[in-house]
């Protein structure tokens, strides 16, 4: 087992190229065990491509990636099954299987990796995951087409958490949710992360999410990670894009609302 101070994800010299267009060049990134790392960057800076490279959906042109201390690149899918069991992924739209009900969606990973498990137990596991992710108890037999956007994301999260992963990838989890739903989803991510001891790799554009739940934030620009640290540390750097991002009108509003929330909880 990996030592606890070793990064859970380690990316070195990653290069991704589509034809003439270079997305990443010499990108380095460490994700520490037990943290929520926010990944931000302008549109087209390759946030999703970075996530897809780490989870093996995209073959990078060069570089090395280790997850849980094991290299993932250039290996057979059968060799990485044990690593895949230990992470869960929530795609942007939830990516639920449209022909299966919510309960069946949550059971897919269990059935796939533990085919001998007692069906009664998989039913029970699916049922408490459904409740844990804040879905109403009658959501189990519903099909994805019958769910709202927020419920789809919750159901996608329930599926991502089906195997009790140590590492969770979230791709813009609050995009397209109303502010109340987005705040509730942030709260849910935070509480699950604490309860289950998760490490979370979180791609987002949502400044409120960054302020509310991220331990550290990595900024993608110029084809690599230009800065990584807490929000206060990032604001202290003098990179123009970061300054613009966190000190623009939306950034300031997020800081204010965060301070107000802290004041409420401490008083």
């Amino acid at each position, binding site marked *: 087992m990996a030592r606890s101070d070793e990064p859970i994800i380690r990316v070195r010299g990653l290069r991704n190229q589509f034809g003439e267009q270079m997305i990443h060049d010499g990108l380095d990134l460490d994700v520490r065990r037990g943290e929520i790392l926010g990944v931000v960057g302008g549109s087209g800076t390759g946030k999703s491509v970075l996530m897809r490279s780490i989870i093996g959906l995209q073959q990078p042109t060069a570089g090395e990636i280790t997850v849980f201390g094991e290299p993932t690149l250039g290996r057979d899918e059968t060799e990485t099954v044990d690593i895949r069991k230990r992470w869960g992924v929530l795609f942007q739209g939830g990516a639920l299987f449209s022909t299966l009900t919510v309960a069946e969606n949550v059971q897919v990973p269990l059935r796939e990796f533990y085919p001998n498990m007692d069906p009664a137990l998989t039913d029970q*596991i699916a*049922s*408490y995951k459904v409740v844990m992710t804040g879905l109403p*108890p*009658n*959501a*189990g*037999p519903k099909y994805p087409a019958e769910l709202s956007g927020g419920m789809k994301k919750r159901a996608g999260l329930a599926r991502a958490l089906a195997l*009790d992963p140590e590492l969770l990838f979230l791709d813009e989890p609050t995009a397209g949710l109303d502010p109340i739903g987005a705040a509730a989803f942030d709260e849910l991510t935070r509480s699950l992360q604490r309860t289950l001891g998760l490490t979370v790799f979180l791609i987002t554009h949502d400044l409120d999410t960054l302020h509310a739940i991220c331990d550290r934030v990595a900024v993608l620009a110029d084809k690599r990670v230009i800065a990584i640290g807490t929000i206060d540390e990032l604001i202290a750097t003098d990179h123009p894009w970061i300054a613009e991002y966190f000190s623009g009108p939306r950034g300031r509003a997020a800081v204010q609302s965060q301070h107000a929330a802290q004041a409420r909880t401490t008083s």
Partner: protein
Amino acid sequence: MSGPADFSAADGGTLRFTGDLSLSRLGTLPDRLNAFDGTATVLDLSGVGRFDTVGAWVVHRFAAKSGAEIRGLDADKRHLLDQVEQADQPVAMRPEHVNPLTRVLGEVGQAVATAFHTLHGLLGFLGATTLAFLNVARHPSRFRFNAVVHRFEVVGVSALGIIGLMSFLIGMVIAQQGAVQLRQFGAEVFTINLVGRLTLREMGVLMTAIMVAGRSGSAFAAQLGTMKLTEEIDAMRTIGVSPMEALVVPRVLAAVLLMPLLGFYSSMIALIGGALLSWATLEIPPITFIQRIREVVPITDLYVGLIKAPVFGAIIAIAGCFQGLQVESDAEQVGSRTTAAVVQAIFLVIVLDAFFAVFFTWLGWN
């Protein structure tokens, strides 16, 4: 690192759990716990290594069943167990079971209702398309010339290759089969009548209609369905552009105008195929073939084909556009509506072809 999950019974109803109580290391523990029939008053978890929600759930369920008390957890594990306990609520897992007889009857009823609903919708759409054509005729400036020309290319020009190949092969097959059968009566020369009348009157236009339904009818449904999904059609309406005029009229017009051309082209290629085969197997030179065609095929056969073609084109385009515009809400519907468009178009084409056959016979065009 501790071993796989296990438990042992000690005196006084204490069950001591050891190892990792986690999904990957659980093994047969749930089954053994279910089979455990002694009394348990205390569950001691102080020897447990890794502990996840599945392990917590199994312990929680057992504790709830046997009324035992859970002990020996540190703060993190206690928190996890509390969260899992809170999530233990009755959850509906499966859609309600329906009696098979009721379900079958329900599905039959639904299918009949859908059929009538579709027929009704299709007739309504035919009316709406006609109105759109009249509107465009009244305001010629609203006619989208470029869109129509583009459809001409997609529906007609790019179909020439595949329709030509198909027709050529069909002409050859008709001639070959005809020659084999007619030879038994020494009447091989009537192969020419067979090829000429069959292709000009029926096969040329019918096979072209089936090919156009598969190529263009499906494309119309998929295009309009996707535009409906991405709200392009709603955007058009809000800007004041009528989707009927901008999208449906060019497609229907292209299909109506090009079907006769494609049908004629298909018949000619089929004749060439038949002529080549007759030349090769029956030793009828092409010039004789053409001569005989002129003698035995009445000109009304060509009229029959050319009159049917635009009607078929209209049916194909209207079925495609109608089904495309029926798409709502999800991407799966684009697929099912596209299939429905092709099936409907081919079905209606064949039904109408039968009516046409009776009608032209009644006219005396045989």
